């Protein structure tokens, strides 16, 4: 019997999830399209006026990012739970927190990173000043991993339930509020030419905290859900 090192197990789970995501491309692309479409609804619903859009832009982009992350969250554990491979993974000698962390990273690479790449385009749609663009990218880079990490807890708690979808958003959205408040505010402050280092430090702190605690909670939740 071969023993696997923890880094190897981490990489194995990560590449496996990325491969699976590549095979099911529509599941990856749909939340991204959702993100774009939700954002384009606002100029049509509220007003195409540049001044109004500019004040709303940070909030709209961030709320849309939250919602599109919610759409893609279930993918993290659901199909593995249904075909039984999640149980097998948890039975392996690899610590479950490492497994969760690998799956979260895969989820972020597939759903968080694309948001980051497409966000500048949406910034242009919503007349966000160029000076705020870098801050928007920074907040997305720091904030979306937190969304994936905290979301992992929610998915782990609801994966065993038949209709977990609506419940998942009820559990997870209140926990997303600090990220939303600080990110949207940082972008708005940058648009006004104000310093944003404080907000970015806070987001970084949130990322560190959720990086260290969320995998533990998600692993414990998975163990409960599997029984």
């Amino acid at each position, binding site marked *: 019997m071969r023993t696997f090192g923890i880094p190897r197990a981490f990489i194995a789970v990560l590449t496996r999830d990325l491969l699976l995501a590549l095979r099911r491309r529509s599941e990856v692309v749909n939340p991204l399209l959702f993100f774009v479409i939700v954002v384009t609804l606002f100029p049509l619903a509220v007003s195409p006026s540049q001044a109004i859009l500019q004040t709303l832009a940070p909030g709209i982009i961030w709320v849309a990012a939250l919602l599109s992350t919610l759409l893609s969250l279930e993918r993290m554990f659901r199909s593995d739970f249904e075909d039984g491979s999640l149980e097998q993974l948890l039975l392996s000698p690899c610590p479950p927190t490492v497994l969760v962390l690998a799956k979260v990273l895969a989820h972020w690479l597939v759903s968080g990173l694309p948001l980051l790449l497409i966000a500048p385009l949406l910034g242009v749609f919503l007349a966000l000043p160029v000076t705020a663009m870098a801050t928007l990218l920074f907040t997305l880079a720091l904030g979306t991993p937190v969304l994936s990490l905290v979301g992992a*807890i929610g998915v782990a708690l609801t994966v*065993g*339930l038949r*209709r977990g979808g609506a419940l998942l958003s009820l*559990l997870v*959205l*209140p*926990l997303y*509020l600090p990220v939303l408040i600080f990110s949207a505010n940082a972008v708005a402050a940058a648009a006004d030419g104000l310093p944003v280092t404080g907000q970015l430090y806070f987001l970084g702190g949130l990322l560190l905290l959720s990086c260290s605690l969320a995998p533990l909670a998600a692993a414990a*939740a998975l163990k409960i859900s599997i029984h």
Partner: protein
Amino acid sequence: MWYWFHRFASPAYFYRFAGKAIPWLATLTGLLLLAGLYGGLVLAPADYQQGDSYRIIFIHVPSAWMSLFIYVVMATAGGIGLIWHIKLAEVIAACSAPIGASFTFIALATGSLWGKPMWGTWWVWDARLTSELILLFLYFGVIALQSAGEDKRTASRASAILALVGVINIPIIHFSVEWWNTLHQGATVSKMGAPSIHTSMLVPLLIMALACKFYYATSLLMRARVELLEREHNSNWIREALKNHE
């Protein structure tokens, strides 16, 4: 000490103990409520700025305190249940959630009723009201997760994890909301700060807070008895208890 603890944590003993304690706790709650309401609504003088409308404080503030207190109790009991697999702790966590949600709702509604004469609108995105609203959402999440699963024990273990995650998040959410609120200070017309608290107001306030604590204990024991009956309906001690009409 451990002997006593184990005996107390056994469902059969707790069921009987709760049955005996409920009338006493209920009486005490009633007396404290009467004293607190009399002191707050009759004896305490009107506030020189807010007039009589400030009297809502005697229900609003204790409810807001209870909403946080019960969440912490729920998370602690849930954690104990998770670690030591104590059934009673799971039951207490599960039964606390609806009571906590009720208090949170009361704090919100009375805050709104107080805000109308003070601010001129039913709702203001004031830091305290906003935090309380989010706390209500957190309670709803725990309650929804509890009732979602088919197996009661799995559901209560899952909701215990959610409650623990929530307890870590509450200070962060609270801080975020406070910070957000100071940036948008324009939204609040006047702060709903404590109106220069005087002993004639403080004493009834504390009595009401105590009454709410005892109310929680009463309601918790009543709910815990039902929950124990439901979860353990096949065990022998329940047959015995029902035969003796306990």
